[in-house]
């Protein structure tokens, strides 16, 4: 295992020290670990809080700031944070207008945030939870753990964060979060595995011309091992299940979010983005907004995911609204 670290046990804490050094407009705590915008709590504004395992950077801590998350709780690498982290984050972010927890759908994340929410509710905090489950690689069913939350988490955080920033109340923020969750779908693939520092070994092995299709974001293998193919075929393989999963009309407007799993060169990501945009245009969809970059990652994994969000005027307005975080910044 080759990593720029000192000790697997202190990776998250030391990275948080780096965040603190780099971003003076964030308050960074390490025990318990959470990151909160420096001007929080903001009286009368809904606090939007997320969190999850580390190793997906910039998700979530890199999205803390005006127009997006109020605070975020980083767990150990690929391990959900604990309830006390969430409680501490809420305590420093809660401006009295309620708290919205945005949680990716993994058993661990759901259980830990659920525990925190119960304890917070018992303390009288008005707390709501919305679960993000955008990954079409996993068949949904009442009898399973359900779909995973993957790159679609970013538009949920961006859009709800923008609304909260503008003063929307907790009901509105919750409704908006559910709307985005209902309108966003993702599918990903991996060319290489990744290595969790405390595991020391790659999460799976792949032959020189093999890829994993339908991966999550925790270095787990996907649904299917298949042969590497030209980029345009890979893009079609990712977009088809996304397109099949929601009902689309000719002329529907979409956000196309081409995400790198961490180790994919930007030149390949842009190439895939161009290919995906062309395919969507062919199918009669309007690519009205784009996002391209390594935003929801699995450490150094090479691979990409493609996310489609069906846009409405309201969602476009919140998507375009100013945002000022370490990793996502525009407007004003």
């Amino acid at each position, binding site marked *: 295992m080759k990593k720029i670290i000192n000790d697997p046990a202190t990776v998250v804490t030391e990275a948080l020290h780096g965040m603190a050094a780099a971003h003076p407009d964030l308050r960074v705590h390490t025990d318990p670990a959470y990151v909160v915008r420096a001007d929080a709590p903001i009286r009368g504004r809904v606090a939007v809080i997320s969190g999850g395992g580390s190793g997906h950077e910039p998700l979530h801590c890199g999205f803390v700031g005006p127009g997006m998350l109020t605070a975020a709780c980083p767990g*150990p690498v690929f391990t959900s944070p604990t309830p006390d982290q969430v409680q501490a984050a809420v305590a420093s972010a809660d401006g009295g207008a309620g708290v919205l927890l945005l949680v990716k759908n993994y058993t661990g994340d759901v259980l830990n945030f659920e525990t925190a929410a119960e304890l917070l509710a018992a303390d009288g905090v008005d707390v709501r939870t919305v679960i993000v489950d955008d990954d079409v690689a996993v068949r949904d069913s009442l009898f399973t753990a359900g779909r995973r939350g993957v790159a679609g988490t970013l538009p949920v955080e961006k859009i709800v964060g923008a609304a909260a920033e503008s003063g929307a109340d907790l009901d509105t923020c919750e409704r908006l979060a559910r709307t985005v969750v209902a309108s966003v779908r993702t599918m990903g693939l991996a060319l290489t595995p990744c290595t969790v520092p405390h595991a020391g070994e790659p999460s799976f092995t792949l032959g020189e011309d093999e890829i994993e299709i339908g991966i999550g974001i925790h270095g787990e293998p996907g*649904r299917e091992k298949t042969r590497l193919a030209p980029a345009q075929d890979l893009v079609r393989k990712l977009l088809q299940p996304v397109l099949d999963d929601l009902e689309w009309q000719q002329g529907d407007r979409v956000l196309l979010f081409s995400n790198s799993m961490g180790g994919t060169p930007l030149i390949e990501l842009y190439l895939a983005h161009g290919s995906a945009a062309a395919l969507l245009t062919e199918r009669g969809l309007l690519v009205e907004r784009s996002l391209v970059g390594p935003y929801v990652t699995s450490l150094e994994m090479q691979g990409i995911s493609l996310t489609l969000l069906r846009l409405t005027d309201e969602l476009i307005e919140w998507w375009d609204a100013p945002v000022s975080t370490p990793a996502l910044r525009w407007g004003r």
Partner: protein
Amino acid sequence: MSCDGAGTAAAWLRVAEVVREHRDELVMLDREIGDGDHGENLRRGFDMVADRLTSAEDDTPRAVLRLVASTLISTVGGAAGPLYGTALLRAGNAIGDRPVLDAAAVAAALTAAVEGVVARGRAEPGDKTMVDALQPAASAAVAASERGATIAEVLAEASAAADAGAHATVPLIARKGRASYLGERSAGHLDPGARSTALILASLAASAAS
């Protein structure tokens, strides 16, 4: 071993050692069908348990379980943290404030533990989770205790049942937890949480027998 608070604390200190010894094995199992952190999650949690138990004064068995539970909840994270935490909170409630445990209390504790895990995680037997080890362990404990077995015998039978239940997860296709994302590819692997449950019960049984 005595079955008072001090004995309970000693037994859980031994569990913490066992978890450390098996950390890499549990990481490896979780890498195959999960995300490779189960051993590290439990190691982190039980290291803290060991810290806190040695510095805690003597107390009732229930107080010991509450301390272990709250420590696991605040340090393990992942699925296993809240599940083991809930299991132990419920187990503690089931034994009440009695200063010394008996066989029936142990059986009741295990039963409450399974119920807690199922209430939180909604897994059924056969879903390839820790329930597949814990559920047969509780049943075996109840049967043994009703037969009038000692605490050591109750835990020995529970441990044997947990071990068998864990190994029976190998052919299963996971329906809960991360392994479920793999669909059919999850078959052929031992569930890491079932394995850690079996390890913990084996350690408790060994302590009770000593």
